[in-house]
C-alpha cells in the first residue's frame, strides 16, 4: 500500500530548489542554471519502516521573493513546505521570517522546514554574520555535494507518516 504526500519547495529565484530535488530524486547535479517556469513536478518513492511506501509528490515552484504572488492553488493541500534560501546571498533570506510567518498563518497545520542551501559556498558556518539566520533554520544543505539532502527528505517523510 502506498500513500502520497505533497511537498512544495519555495523560495527566491536561483536558491537551488530544483537542484535539491534533482539531487534527491535522480542523484544528479548541474551547475548550469535553468530557471523554473510555473511549476515542475517530480515523484520519489520512500520506503517506511512499517512496510508501507510513501510517494513524495514534489512540487518545484518557480522562484519568487514574495510568496503572496504564488498561485494559491499550488499551495493548497500541501503536506510539507520546504522554504529554501541561498546562504551565500543575503537578499534571499532578507524576508525569511516574514515569508515563514505568512505560510504558518495561512497553513497552520502544514509541516514547514527551512533550508539554507549552497552551504559549500561559505568558508565558515560559525561566522557571526550567519549566526542569527542559521539559528532560525532547520537544515543547512548543499545540492552540489549532496550534504543533508537525503536527511532532509527522510525526516520529512517520517514526520508525515507518524
Amino acid at each position, binding site marked *: 500500500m502506498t500513500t*502520497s504526500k505533497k511537498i512544495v519547495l519555495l523560495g527566491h529565484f536561483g536558491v537551488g530548489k530544483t537542484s535539491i530535488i534533482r539531487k534527491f530524486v535522480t542523484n544528479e547535479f548541474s551547475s548550469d542554471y535553468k530557471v523554473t517556469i510555473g511549476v515542475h513536478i517530480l*515523484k520519489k518513492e520512500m520506503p517506511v519502516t512499517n512496510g508501507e511506501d510513501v510517494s513524495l*509528490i514534489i*512540487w518545484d515552484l518557480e522562484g519568487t521573493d514574495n510568496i503572496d504572488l504564488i498561485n494559491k*492553488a499550488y499551495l493548497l493541500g*500541501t503536506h510539507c513546505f520546504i522554504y529554501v534560501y541561498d546562504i551565500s546571498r543575503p537578499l534571499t533570506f532578507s524576508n525569511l521570517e516574514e515569508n515563514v510567518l505568512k505560510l504558518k498563518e495561512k497553513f497552520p497545520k502544514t509541516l514547514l522546514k527551512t533550508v539554507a542551501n549552497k552551504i559549500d559556498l561559505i568558508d565558515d558556518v560559525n561566522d557571526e554574520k550567519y549566526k542569527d539566520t542559521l539559528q532560525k533554520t532547520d537544515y543547512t544543505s548543499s545540492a552540489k555535494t549532496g550534504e543533508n539532502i537525503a536527511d532532509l527528505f527522510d525526516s520529512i517523510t517520517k514526520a508525515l507518516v507518524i
Partner: protein
Amino acid sequence: MPESNKLRQLKELLLHEDRDEIALLQAKIKTLESILEKQEQLASRIDPIIDKKLAQYTKDIPEKLGPTITESLKNEIANSKDAVVDALFPIIGKMIKKYIQQEFKILSDKINAQLQKSFSLKNWTRKFKSKVSGIDEENLIIQELAKTEIHEIFIIEKNSGILIANFSKAKTIDKDVISAMLTAIKSFVEDAFKTGNDSLELIEYGLYNIHIQNFNSYYFAVVAHGVFDSAYKGKLEYELLNFAEKHLAKGPKKNISIKLAEFFNNDDL
C-alpha cells in the same frame, strides 16, 4: 696499349656509376611515359587518390558549408516568401488530398466489410434500428466506427492534486505525476483568467479529449478518444455522477480503483 684505349678504359672506370644511374633514370622515364600515354594505367593510379579526397570533401560538407548553405537558404526564403509558398502549395495540397483519399478509402472499406456481414446479429439489429430511427444504415455504421472510447480515468484530490483512484486501459508513464500536473494546469488556467467560479472542463489534443468534471473535494479527469460531442459528454457526466453517488459520497474507499474499472471497463457507455 694505344693511348686511345687507355683513355677509354680510364673513362669507363671513372664514369661507370654515373652511366648506371643514367640508364636507371632513362628506364624510369620510359615507364612514366608509357603510364602517361596509357590513360587506363594513369587512371588506376590517380583514381584512388581523387576518390579519397572526394570522400573527405563530402564528409566535410555539412561542417564546412552547412552553416553557409543554411544561412543562404534562410535569406532566400525570407526574401521570397511568396515564391516559396507558391512552390510548396501544390505539393502540400496534393499530400493532403492523397491523405484524405486514403482515409476515405479505409472508411469505405470498413463500411463495406460491415455491410457484407449481412447475416450477423449486429447487422440485423442495425437494420432494425435504421428502420425505426429513420437514420441510414451507412450513417449508423459511421457512428459505430467513430465511437468514443475511454482510455483513462483519474479521480484526483482537488487541492493537493494527489491521485485517489485510476482506471487505465494502457500503461501510463506515472499516474501520480500526471494527476499533479493536471491539477497544476487546471489551477493555472483557472487562476490566470480569473473568471470567478468557472473551471477548466476540457483539454483537447489531437483526437483525444480530457474531460474534467469537478466535485467538491475531488475531480474526475477522463481521457477519451474519438468523437466527443455534447451527447456523449452528457452521457459521460451522468455516468460520473452516478459513480460518485455510489462510491464517493461517503469518501473514497480503499477498493475505489477496482470499482472504477468495473464501472467503466465497458465500451457501451
